[in-house]
Structures are given as C-alpha cells and as structure tokens.
C-alpha cells in the first residue's frame, strides 16, 4: 500500500502558533481582569463582597443599596463550608475582597490575626440604640467591634403540638423538668419524645451550652481565661444529656449521629415531639407537600431552669471589613445600609432573616408574614455568646470529643468534663 499524504489547509506550525497566541492573550486578559478592582471605568465606586447568599434571594437588597448609594457590589457567593478557606486564601493575597461574611466563632481569630478592621469608632447612635449588646457581642473581641451582625440567629424549641396534645400536654415545656416529663409522655414504640443534633460537631457544643446556661452562675472560663466549665454548670448539663439518653430513655439514640439538618428533616416524619434547632424550621415542617408533621409544628422558647427563663446560643453571622480593603468608606456604607431598617425589614420579608433591630420585632407587617414572630424576638433576649477565643476551633473540638465520649457511655460526665477542662487549658501553645 502506498503512502497517503494529505496537505492540511492549516500547517501544524501555524496551528500551534495560533493556539499559543490565543492562550497568551487569554492569560493576559485574565490577569488584567483580576487586577482591575477599584472604581469601574465609568468611575462608579465598587465594593467586593464575599458571602453565602447561595440562593441569591437577597439580590434585591443589594440592588437597593446600589440604587441608594450609587455603589456597585461585586458579589462572590460560596457555600458556608468553603467560606473560611476562601477568606484565609484572600488574606494571604489570593483575593480582593472588601467585605466578608463572618461566623460568630471566627471573630476572635480574625481580630487576633489582624484580618478585619476595628469598627468600634464607626458605631452610630442609631445602631447602638436598636441593636442589643448581646447581638453585637457576637462580633466583639476584647471590647472592640469587628463586624456588623447580618441577622439574628439562635436555637429555639420546635415541637409537634399534636403529639404533645395526644399525651395530655396543652403547652410546650417552659423548664427542663417539664421537658423531661413531656418527652417521657410522648415516647412510645415508633415515636421519640426528643431528638437532638448531638453528632460530634459544633452543634453538640451549642446544645450543651444552651443547657448549661439554664443554671444560675454557669461559667465557661474565669477572668484569667482558665477553663471552669467543669465545675460551673458543664458537668450537670452533660449529666442531663446522658440521662435523656440512658436514664429517662427519651432521646432517640440517632441523636448521636444527627446534625441540625438531620433533626429538621426527621421532625417532618411526625414521629418526634421535641427538638432544638435554629430558626427557619417552620415553613417546610408545616408544608403538607413536604412534611408528615404539617401543620402541627410550632416554635417556643428553649426551656429554662429554676431562676432562668430561657437560654440559647447566639448563632448570628455578620459582615466584616477586611484590613486589606482599599475601599473602606464604600465598604462601611454597605455595612451601615445592611444594619438599617430598610435592609433588615426587607430581608425578613423576602429571605426570612431575623432582624438585628429590636424595634422590628413589634412591626405589624412582619407579625403578619412570619408565624410566631414574637417568640423569635423573645428568644433573642436570652442568648449566650460562645467564648470569643482566637483558638476557639481547637478548644471546641476538644470539648466536643469529650462530650461525645460521655454521651457514648465511654466515660462518666464528670470524668469527661474534667478531662476536657484540663486539655483546653493545656491547648494554648502553638505546635
């Protein structure tokens, strides 16, 4: 067979050259594009925002801000789980963000690392008067303000009113003793009185803290930063949790592998009476298309103790301005607008966010649109702020591990709490 040759209309050399030039142009274009921050070509001021509005439901709020101030907002939207890594990369030089969404438990770490700006001097009287100190506490470290809360968030009691009524209870539990009694009354084959998010995670720590602070005098650290939780309420709270599982037998053992999301979904099966969870449970739980428990799920204050009406954990998220930002003023304008009634009310209406402004909890329009709205406002008065520590993640992990060991019946609550306190105190040095 003879050789077959074919003359290509585009020689290899020409093809490679074209591809090379095109790639070079694309690379150069990308580099130039990434360098082009600051005001746009038309002179419009810009703010680069990193946050987790993953459904883009708050887009109208951003549009309102741009309309009101003329400042354009470039949004980068990521899932919660990716956000911390994204921020860490940005502050190491991998991004040009001005404003980032910050979890409560990151405040101390970000402040200590010098990643976020001190906003204390910018706090206006309007904000001071209408935002409660405990709400601002989520973004305060060593007496300085490092962010602006985006919305209020706390754990609440979500209960199945039908199951409680069938067991003879006409109101949700107001105290932990009542909680145990009602959980006992509603536990029967195929049905549990309570379900918890006690997987080894931050959720477990939140529930433990909520229960711990129903006791007068409960304390996490002393004034020198030494762990005292094991002698000041932590052991009793853990004992109560263990008792729910093994003594009263009113907590589903599945609690030990459940997250808050699991608890939310499992409440919808209609086989659980009492659960702790963050706000936002009701719309799905009372939708008959999605939930077997509809329309019987209601919200109430978390149960309290002898002298304490209620206790919950502050889970708010906030916006902070990165120290590296070159657009401080525009960035602050965005934070200020976000903390205004215009944003906060509209965010509640379109996205179901719970306002940071106390005055909005008496707003008739919000009461009309959000089921049991007043109860949320009431719960936000009884918040515990998790310890603002730069190495909170490490210390929280230590406590979670010991809590879980006790809940798995590997050690007693007292042993677990003493071991946790000792390890927390030792975990101060950087490897």
């Amino acid at each position, binding site marked *: 067979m003879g050789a077959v040759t074919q003359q290509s209309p585009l020689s290899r*050399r020409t093809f490679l050259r074209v591809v090379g030039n095109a790639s070079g142009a694309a690379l150069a274009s990308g580099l130039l594009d990434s360098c082009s921050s600051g005001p746009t070509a038309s002179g419009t001021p810009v703010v680069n925002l990193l946050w987790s509005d993953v459904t883009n439901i708050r887009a109208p709020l951003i549009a309102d801000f741009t309309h009101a101030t003329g400042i354009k907002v470039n949004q980068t939207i990521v899932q919660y789980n990716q956000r911390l890594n994204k921020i860490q990369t940005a502050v190491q030089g991998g991004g040009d963000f001005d404003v980032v969404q910050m979890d409560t438990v990151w405040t101390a770490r970000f402040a200590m690392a010098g990643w976020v700006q001190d906003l204390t001097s910018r706090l206006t009287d309007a904000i001071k008067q209408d935002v409660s100190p405990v709400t601002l506490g989520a973004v305060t470290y060593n007496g300085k303000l490092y962010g602006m809360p985006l919305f209020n968030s706390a754990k609440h009691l979500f209960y199945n009113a039908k199951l409680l009524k069938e067991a003879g209870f006409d109101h949700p539990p107001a105290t932990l003793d009542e909680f145990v009694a009602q959980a006992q009354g509603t536990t029967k084959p195929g049905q549990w009185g309570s379900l918890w998010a006690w997987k080894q*995670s931050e959720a477990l720590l939140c529930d433990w803290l909520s229960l711990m602070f129903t006791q007068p005098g409960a304390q996490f650290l002393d004034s020198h930063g030494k762990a005292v939780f094991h002698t000041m309420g932590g052991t009793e709270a853990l004992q109560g949790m263990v008792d729910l599982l093994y003594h009263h037998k009113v907590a589903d053992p*599945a609690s030990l*592998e459940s997250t808050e999301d699991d608890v939310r979904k499992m409440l919808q099966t209609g086989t659980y009476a009492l659960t702790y969870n963050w706000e936002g449970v009701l719309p799905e739980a009372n939708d008959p298309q999605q939930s077997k428990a509809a329309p019987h799920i209601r919200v109430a204050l978390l149960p309290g103790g002898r002298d304490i009406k209620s206790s919950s954990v502050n889970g708010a998220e906030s916006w902070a301005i990165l120290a590296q930002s070159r657009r401080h003023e525009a960035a602050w304008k965005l934070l200020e607008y976000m903390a205004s009634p215009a944003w906060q009310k509209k965010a509640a209406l379109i996205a179901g966010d719970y306002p940071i402004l106390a005055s909005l909890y008496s707003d008739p329009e919000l009461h009309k649109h959000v089921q049991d709205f007043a109860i949320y406002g009431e719960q936000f008065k009884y918040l515990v702020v998790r310890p603002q520590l730069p190495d909170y993640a490490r210390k929280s992990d230590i406590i979670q591990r010991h809590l879980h060991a006790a809940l*798995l019946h590997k050690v007693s609550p007292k042993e677990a709490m003493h071991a946790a306190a000792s390890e927390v105190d030792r975990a101060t040095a*950087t490897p």
Partner: protein
Amino acid sequence: MPLPTFGTRFGGAFLGRKQAPGVTRVPSGELSERALGVAMLAPMVLVLLLVVAYPLADSLWLSLHRVNLANPEQGQPFVGLGNYLHAFRQPAFWYSVHRTLYFTLLSVALELALGLLFAVLLNERFRGNLGARVAMIFPWALLTVSNGVLWAWILNPTYGMANALLVGLGVLQTPKAWLSDTFWTMHVVILADAWKMVPTMTLLLLAGLQPIAPDLYEAAEVDGATRWQKFSRITLPLLRPVILVAVVLRTIGAFRVFDLIYVLTGNGGPANSTKVIAFYAYDQAFHYLFFGYGAAISWLITVCMLVLIAIYMHWLRTEGER
C-alpha cells in the same frame, strides 16, 4: 508504510536525532523543530514546576517553621525538626496513626478477598459474564463523595435501608444508629470503601488471571487435582505479581483516606474513632491554622507513601527479573 505522525517526528527532533532525509528544512528566521518543541513544552513544564514542585518544596520549608496564621504576631520562627518531634510526642497523632493502620489493613484485606473471589468468578465462562463485568464497574465509577452520601442514606437510623432490611428480617429488634457507635462506625466506613474499591481490585486481578494458560488447568485435571488444588497451586502462584501490585496500590490509596470519612462522619467521630492521619493533618492545617505543623504531618504521610512506593518498585523489579 506508516504514516508520519506528530509524535514520532516531534519526538525525534526533540531528542536530537538526525533529521530524516526528505524532511523540509526550516527556513532561516523561523524556529527549528527542536526549539519549537522546547518552546511548546515550556509552559507545561512551568505549570508543573509551579503546581507540583514549588508547593512540595514550599511545604517542606513550611514544615520546618512554626506558622500559625491566626497569630501573625509570633512570626514564623525556624524550628528545624521541632514540628516532627512535636507530632511524635502527641497521643492524638499516634491515635490517628493507629486508626489509619486499622482502616488500611482491614479495608485492603477485605478488598483483596472479595476482589479475588469476583475475579475468579468473572474469569469463568458463563451466560451474562459481560453484563456482570459492566455491573462491577458501577461502584468504582461513582465519586467518593457520592459514595459517602449514598452510604449515609443507607445507614440513616430513621429512614435508612439497612435498618429497614435488618429489622424486617428480624436480625435487629429496633433500628440501630450505626454511625454513633465507635465500633460500628469504623467498620461501616471500611464496608463503604470496600464497596467502591473492590471493582478496582477485581479488574486488576482479572487482568492477571486471563493470561494463565488453560492447558495448565487441563493438565492438573488429568492428574486428578481438586478445584482448591488448582486454585492454590496454579492460580495463586501465577497471580502473585498482580496481587502484590494491587495490594500496594490499594494500601497507598487506603492510607490517604479522607473524603469518605469526612462525608460519613463529618468530624472523624464518634469520639474521634475514625480520625485517621489525613483528617488529623487537615484539622491542624485548615481548621486550627497551624500550617507549619500541618505541613509536617503531610510530609510524614508522604514519607509513608514513599516507603510503600519503594516496596512496590522493588517488587516490580524482583518479579521482572524472575
């Protein structure tokens, strides 16, 4: 006559071979084939240097420093082997090594046993053999994260299939919370890993089985050998090189396990019972921001991998020389 291909012509030029007669000379003023080749390869080499060599060297350098991103005030002092020595003094580090070895030994043993069984079965001629081989590929084709989510659903205590089946069959009286038990969690993670990785093992072993000449089995049958004798005296010895390769490759993979445990347990729980060494390194670097220490742990994992790879290379060479 073979068609001239880009590879042979380009390769020849790049390796400095004498230009074949008849090849058009490059007009003066244009790059020679060799220079063009170097120019075209340069971006790839540069990218590899940037994304592989540089991070490796940088992480080694990082591992010799105390780096806490959350506390820039302490600077980044050189600590030599301090991070490595710190790891050796940590009970949590040794516990994670223990958990890793436990996972690796059990998962590789299970995968080898099942892989061998399926490979021998699929090597037989039977109706539907092709369909069985295709079905075998499915778990392997699944993303590890998807596999984790799938098993999380199967094992869900309230609406999972595993409990429904076991309670339905009367094996369990009440549904079990599999992932809240320190014993069961590690073992269901191993099961989930085996479900995904047995096909890989099967394919490797099947490839090793196919060249074994049927004459050997026929001769053994003439001599009155039983099925077990044929398997233990013919199949296993001839399959040994492939088994060695498969075991080393899977050991390397199992030693690095992270994503499956992350999806199934979230935090290496319950009570850290599934906190393998890759999870420990992740926590230190990305959760606590101890980048120097995290880099040291990563290098310890890398050294373990290099040892396994050295064993693998040695075996390959030994088998090749036989």
